[in-house]
């Protein structure tokens, strides 16, 4: 079976692309490991239309409910969309057609389970969190080191914790932890706190539980069975200091999930897929990309959703002209 369009991803860009493709009556397949992506960990979202404040989990639930109305079975054949969860796409290849030159080209999408064929592809795999790469970071992941504050903050009740990374996400993590932890160190690379939320910054500065360490970097994590401390170095004095902590929450940004493409598409030096911002087409005709995995400015839910729609229309126009 050959699909018109295969969409890879489960965040707002992929979901929106699938809805638009289904409504254009394209024979569409959506492949995702799970729904939500990074949006799942959003503690409180205040900049998506229609909701004054909503958690990431709730917004994902609403997106998925909406999406599933377009499922082939659920719509009793009104739409031709298949949704497959638990699928990780490992590679995409251009399928060479021998012989008839007029025959349009197809793409192979190989997942952990099966091989699928599509006439067009939309990549909406988003970003994944950047991991710490210092001694102890790998060893103690899940053993005191957490990359998900909304998951694990409540586990560190009355414990001493550190937050690595003092951008918006790091500051938000500190704020979540103030409800549980007895003491929170915030390790900041810069000489003062940056970010969009001035009110939150001021609140953190005044909070007696919070100690902000400016112009420092973490260099080592120690422990036995679980984390018991970390060493940081001051950029200014070069001095190293060890502090005792039970938990470490990491918020040092994210990297685009474009590794599986293995050089198939042109990317910028950050690893973001370079697209045409009108049609969302990539350097390979027939492959489109949308959302945080691309070089678009603004990694936001609403932007990703808009781009998903654009990519679906781009793919629709491409298929029409084939």
């Amino acid at each position: 079976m050959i699909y018109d369009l295969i969409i890879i991803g489960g965040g707002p860009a992929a979901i929106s692309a699938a809805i638009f493709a289904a409504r254009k009556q394209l024979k569409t397949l959506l492949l995702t490991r799970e729904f939500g992506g990074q949006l799942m960990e959003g503690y409180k979202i205040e900049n998506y239309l229609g909701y004054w404040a909503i958690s990431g989990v709730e917004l994902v639930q609403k997106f998925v409910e909406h999406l599933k109305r377009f499922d082939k079975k659920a719509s009793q054949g009104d739409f031709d969309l298949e949704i497959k969860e638990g699928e990780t796409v490992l590679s995409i290849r251009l399928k060479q057609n021998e012989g008839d030159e007029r025959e349009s080209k197809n793409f192979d999408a190989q997942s952990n389970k099966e091989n699928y064929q599509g006439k067009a592809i939309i990549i909406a795999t988003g970003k994944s969190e950047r991991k710490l790469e210092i001694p102890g970071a790998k060893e103690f992941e899940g053993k005191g080191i957490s990359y998900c504050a909304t998951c694990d903050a409540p586990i560190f009740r009355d414990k001493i914790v550190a937050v690595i990374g003092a951008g918006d996400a790091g500051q938000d993590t500190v704020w979540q932890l103030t409800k549980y932890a007895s003491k929170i160190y915030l390790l900041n690379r810069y000489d003062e706190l940056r970010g969009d939320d001035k009110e939150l910054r001021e609140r953190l500065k005044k909070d007696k539980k919070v100690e902000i360490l400016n112009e420092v970097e973490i260099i080592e994590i120690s422990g036995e069975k679980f984390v018991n401390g970390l060493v940081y170095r001051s950029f200014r004095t070069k001095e190293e200091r060890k502090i005792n902590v039970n938990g470490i929450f990491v918020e040092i940004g994210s990297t685009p999930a474009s590794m599986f493409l293995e050089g198939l598409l042109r990317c910028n030096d950050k690893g973001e897929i370079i697209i045409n911002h009108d049609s969302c087409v990539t350097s390979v005709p027939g492959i489109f990309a949308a959302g945080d995995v691309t070089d678009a400015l603004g990694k936001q839910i609403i932007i990703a959703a808009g781009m998903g729609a654009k990519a679906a229309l781009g793919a629709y126009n491409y298929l029409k002209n084939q």
Partner: protein
Amino acid sequence: MVKVYSTPTCPYCHTLKAFLKEKGVEFQDIDVSQDEKALNEMIDKSGQMGVPVSDIDGQIVIGFDREKICQLLKIEC
């Protein structure tokens, strides 16, 4: 017997529990943010300070590992 150790805010715990419900699997939901004894039990069993953790008839699964959970429950994914 299936136990799920979770916190109320944890997104992957929600997904995991919704998945088990969808598959008709009965489970005991344990909120470790409210129950220190259960939290210590979870840490002892799993060696993890992170949720979700599932205990499927004594076998421990860390995170929402869909395939492993299906395998242990002998259900289709």
